[in-house]
């Protein structure tokens, strides 16, 4: 679904590139987390993968299309239709209410009014935002704002969700709620998700974790199937001592 080839990005010449010839393939339906030290370039990599930023070298293919060689106009369309973004600070429009925020990408894309209305209704219900449709972001808790942001990201029925520290501003319980939504999307709708996080327990929801450091993928760890009972044994062994 996403193929990253020889991607490189350097903000200042002479310095170590923040993305240093990265190659990566993310399959359709895969849920991947990226972890790594602060300042290592995780957000830069994610932004490049979503076409929010331009690389010095290399290409990103999303659903087969080379993101960085498309014209500006086609890239914008592609971003809007195929990729849903979620950020740590939600990035909602403060003047618009919940309904309008969720509808925003569809309105920009000139979708028919009735279609927008139906989709927004559906998402409000799915994300537990019923009764909050008329509220503006300031009137919502952090967890609720992030759910609005997720609804907005899903409005155009994207192929991929890119999330940068989606739980970074939330407490444990709210983080768990947000992660359960993403997990549900992944499991029930086979959504392809790439998420940056500092938090191991949040990354643990993914089935693949990339450790990113100094502009490179240091390790690529996948969940192994079938060794679940051993985990339980370990805990029970601890109980015995």
């Amino acid at each position, binding site marked *: 679904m996403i193929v990253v080839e020889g991607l490189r990005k350097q903000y200042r010449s002479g310095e170590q590139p923040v993305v240093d010839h990265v190659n990566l393939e993310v399959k359709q339906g895969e849920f991947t987390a990226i972890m790594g030290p602060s300042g290592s370039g995780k957000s830069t990599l994610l932004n490049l993968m979503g076409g929010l930023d331009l690389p010095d070298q290399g290409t990103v293919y999303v659903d087969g299309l080379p993101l960085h060689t498309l014209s500006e106009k086609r890239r914008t369309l592609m971003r809007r239709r195929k990729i849903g973004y979620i950020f740590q600070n939600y990035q909602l429009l403060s003047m618009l209410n919940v309904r309008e925020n969720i509808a925003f990408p569809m309105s920009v894309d000139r979708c028919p009014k009735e279609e927008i209305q139906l989709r927004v209704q559906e998402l409000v219900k799915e994300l537990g935002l019923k009764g909050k449709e008329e509220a503006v972001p300031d009137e919502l808790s952090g967890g609720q704002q992030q759910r609005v942001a997720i609804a907005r990201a899903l409005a155009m029925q994207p192929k991929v969700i890119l999330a940068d520290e989606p739980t970074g501003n939330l407490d444990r319980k709210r983080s768990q709620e947000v992660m359960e939504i993403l997990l549900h999307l992944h499991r029930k709708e086979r959504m392809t998700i790439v998420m940056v996080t500092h938090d191991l327990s949040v990354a*643990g929801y993914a089935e693949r974790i990339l450790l990113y450091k100094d502009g490179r993928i240091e*390790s690529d760890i996948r969940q192994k199937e079938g060794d*679940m*009972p051993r*985990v339980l044994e370990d805990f029970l062994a601890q109980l015995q001592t």
Partner: protein
Amino acid sequence: MSVKHAILALLYQQNRHGYDIKTQFESMVHGQWPLNAGQVYTTLDRLTRDGLVEPLAEGDRDRKEYRITDAGKEALHQWLLTPVERSLLKDAFFFKLLCAQEIDFPRKSEILNRQRSSLIRHMMQLRQLRAGLDPKRHKAMIYLVEGGILHLEADMKWLEMLLEESEME
């Protein structure tokens, strides 16, 4: 030892036969900790000797029902109220590092990196396990898994600290 206290807890609920204790215990730990009948009977004998339980009648050990005594209830309460200490030095991974230090093992950062990968896998397993648990039916198991997740998080932070130090060396 926990088997002893698990048996006291099961008898605290109601009088039981040895076999009943075995099956109840196994359902309490979701079948993940099999208990053989011999272990149940030797523990019951020891508890009887210490006056913490008593058989309700003499005879065939399979048929014999047991009851908890007042001393047994008191012992159970005391055990429940006693905080559990964790021994730092008994941490298996720390012990490994200590030995590596001792022999000046040249691949120390590899030890740390491998441990980190293992922690990460472990976290993914726990998350998967957690996602399959039902809040109504598996409440105790959820506590256990959530506790495990928090421990892993702390272990990861500790490991990252060690990795940072080892990089500076």
